[in-house]
């Protein structure tokens, strides 16, 4: 992680700023609302569930609760990366209809916490009907770098509700 002390996005003073936890995945930086993040865990392996898409790595045991784990690289169609001890799982709590669900999201590394004002969030350009586009809430720029802010509720829901496939790989 970078040593910079709490990088502050421009316009922090404005009311309504939201804090985002950012992480890196295949060289790109993403952000999720920090209030959704329950904890950050090291990779401990999962149990695969047949008939689910490849990006759904399987389920893990989170203190007695079965929690699905999503590989963000595979979900976004990025080249896969081998799991090792440094692989990080961000455990998020999301709204799914009336209920709340817990899910793990595998990313390369966690990086920073940013405060982002609504005024600094740009709408993601229309990428031509890509279904993944819907999971990006917007774009913001921090230190000249683009950070994609994810709609984590929608992302997790899209994984859980994905159609079945015949057997896992």
């Amino acid at each position, binding site marked *: 992680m970078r040593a910079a002390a709490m990088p502050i996005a421009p316009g922090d003073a404005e009311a309504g700023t939201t804090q985002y936890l950012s992480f890196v995945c295949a060289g790109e930086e993403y952000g999720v609302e920090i209030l959704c993040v329950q904890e950050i865990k090291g990779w401990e392996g999962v149990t695969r*569930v*047949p008939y689910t898409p490849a990006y759904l790595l399987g389920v*893990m045991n989170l203190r007695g609760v079965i929690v699905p784990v999503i590989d963000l690289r595979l979900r976004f169609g990025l080249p896969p990366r081998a799991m090792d001890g440094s692989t990080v799982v961000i455990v998020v709590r999301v709204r799914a209809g009336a209920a709340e669900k817990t899910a793990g999201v595998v990313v390369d590394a966690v990086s920073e916490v940013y405060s982002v004002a609504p005024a600094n969030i740009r709408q993601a350009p229309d990428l031509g009907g890509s279904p993944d586009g819907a999971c990006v809430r917007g774009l913001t720029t921090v230190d000249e770098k683009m950070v994609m802010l994810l709609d984590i509720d929608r992302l997790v829901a899209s994984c859980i509700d994905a159609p079945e496939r015949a057997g896992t790989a």
Partner: protein
Amino acid sequence: MTLDLAQFHETFFAESFEALDSMEAALLKLSAGEADLELVNTIFRVAHSIKGGSATFGFSDIAAFTHTLETLLDELRSGKRRADAALVDTLLRSCDLMRDMLGATQSKEPIDKARVGALHAEIELVLETPADSAPIDTVAGTAAMPAAPAPQDSAARPVQPADEAPTGWRIHFVPGPKLLRNGNDPLRLLRELATLGPCDVRVDAKWVPPLPELDPEECRLSWRIELEGAIEEAAIKAVFDWVEGECDLNLEAFGPAAEATATAVTAAAVTAAAAATSVAPTSAQAVTAQAIAAEPAAPEATLTQATAMNPPPQVSANEGLARHAAPATNTAPAPTAAPEESAAKAAAPATSTAPAAHGAASGDGGSIRVSIEKIDELLNSVGELVITQSVLSQLAAPLEGREAEDLRNALGQLERHMRGLQESVMRVRMLPISVVFNRFPRLVRDLGQRLGKRIELRLTGDSTELDKTVLEKIGDPLVHLVRNAIDHGIETPEVRLAAGKPAHGVIELNAYHKGGNVVVEVSDDGGGLRREKILAKARERGLVSGDEELSEERVFNLIFAPGFSTADVVSDVSGRGVGMDVVKRNINELGGHVQIHSSPGKGSMVRIRLPLTLAILDGQLARVGEEVYVVPIVSIVETIQVRQEQVGSIAARAQVFRLRDDYLPIIRLYELFGIEPQYTELLDGLLMIVEADGKRVGLFVDELMSQQQVVIKSLETNFRPVMGFAGATMLGDGRVALILDIPGVISRFHNREPRRDAAQQVAA
């Protein structure tokens, strides 16, 4: 003090529903000819407490209805009325109505006033018709008062018939310590007394403890009240109606007939006390009920003393009493002194038994209400502890040295305690099956009546305990089976007599534990299933090919086929199938099994085997490649090492396995689940023969691992249900293993190639 009563509503509803259940049970026993005063008292208590509660909470419709009902029950209780079939029927319907009214109030829906009005009017009509004056057997037969065959209407009001009401009453009112806590205010009672006439109230504070020991919520005061005026005893008792059973109340009249009444009341109390000690009632209320019931004993004492003192007007007023008074007077020839003395002597045990009764009441059965979520949380935590403990044991296993040995011993102890803890927590969720059985007497009675069949219901093993979640789901299937047995199993009395059977049929519900399962049997001694007709019907519908010969079991299982059970099926057999597929499905969903035994002309029996709990499952761990799956042991028939000659191929891909006389399809789990196995050759691995919905298949796995009880976790909580899997569980090392759902696996297998698109659509 303002108090938000709404917070007590739920408790009131829950308790009222339970109370109504017990009222219904008592009514049914009464209608079955069981004559017991305690039953009548139970019924009365229920109506009384519902009346009280609903009046307190302002549910005036319920209060008004129960008030009238109570009047009727009071006549029943005092023996003025006999509990004949018509009356029991009315009371049962009142029971239903109260339940519906409470339900409507609970869900804040309007009460069906027309229905209430109709039944209300009916009860009032019953009240207006002159009561059967003969005492009901229930009263005479009660051991508590062998000396009281006297007509009770005169007994209930020992003073009134004489038209010589007392000029005043001395009341000694000793509230129980819990009176305040139960929401009663003695001050209110005193104020109400004052409305009856001029009152002289003196408080007795000698039992009030010193300040440091004082509990402000306990009532330690008692009162002596002198109430002037010609007031009916009942009017005074009515004031204390609310605290009945929570206080000691002593009424003493003074005036012309005063002394007589005083002893009468005391004597009643004595009899009550005697009854209290002899029958050991479980609550103070029971004692009170006994006391009221015991009042018939009073007239004798009244007369004894009345004759001794002055020529009593009562005797002329009650000729019936005089007859009974005669022996009493004979035994007490001494004027004045003797009866008083005996009354005093008798009064002593009365006071000494009272505290015991109060103690019993405050014990309250020793139970609390806990929400099921709290218990589940507890169960979860315990499950986690079990896993942590087994991780610890695994860590300790390779250690060496003396300290390691001590550590392992301690861990062994921990394991034993953990197992105990887990069992205790599981037991918290267990309830007796009587919770479900209790609805059947009513159902059998009503349906039998409607169909003109005479049916005796026998319940055995109703204290067998099983998990609450299982209990909740077993109710409907059982109702279905019992209805079927009544409707189609038991024949009409004429048919039965013609077949040389007793006119009334027997339906038996039996529950027992057997090897980690609960078995529930529903049997009848009716006509039984007609094998040939079922088979013919199945052939007609194409469920069975024309010349196929089936075992008895397979034939009976046909009635579980969906759609088999429609109205077009020949009626005397068929109706048995109505909804049988639903029954079977419900029970399979619970991880249970259904079996049917039947012999023509003698009856049939449906045997249901259920797991004790849904939270824990006996599982066989099986490995396929690197994955470990849990197979429910209840589904496993056997596990076999395959020999070459047992395997045959039907087409290029479809392999079958010959097990004795059956050919079973082979499901290669690695293929079905798309995983990398250790073995692909059938001869290398193992074949688990599993059964679901009467179908047997072989599951090909790499190897079997241990058998263990696993805690079932839902996949749905954070994910979604996946067909073929019943859930997941945590293994000893903290890893997650999926639990196979055999019916799901089989239907996956059948749907795999040709209908993949359909499967995907369903899943999506």
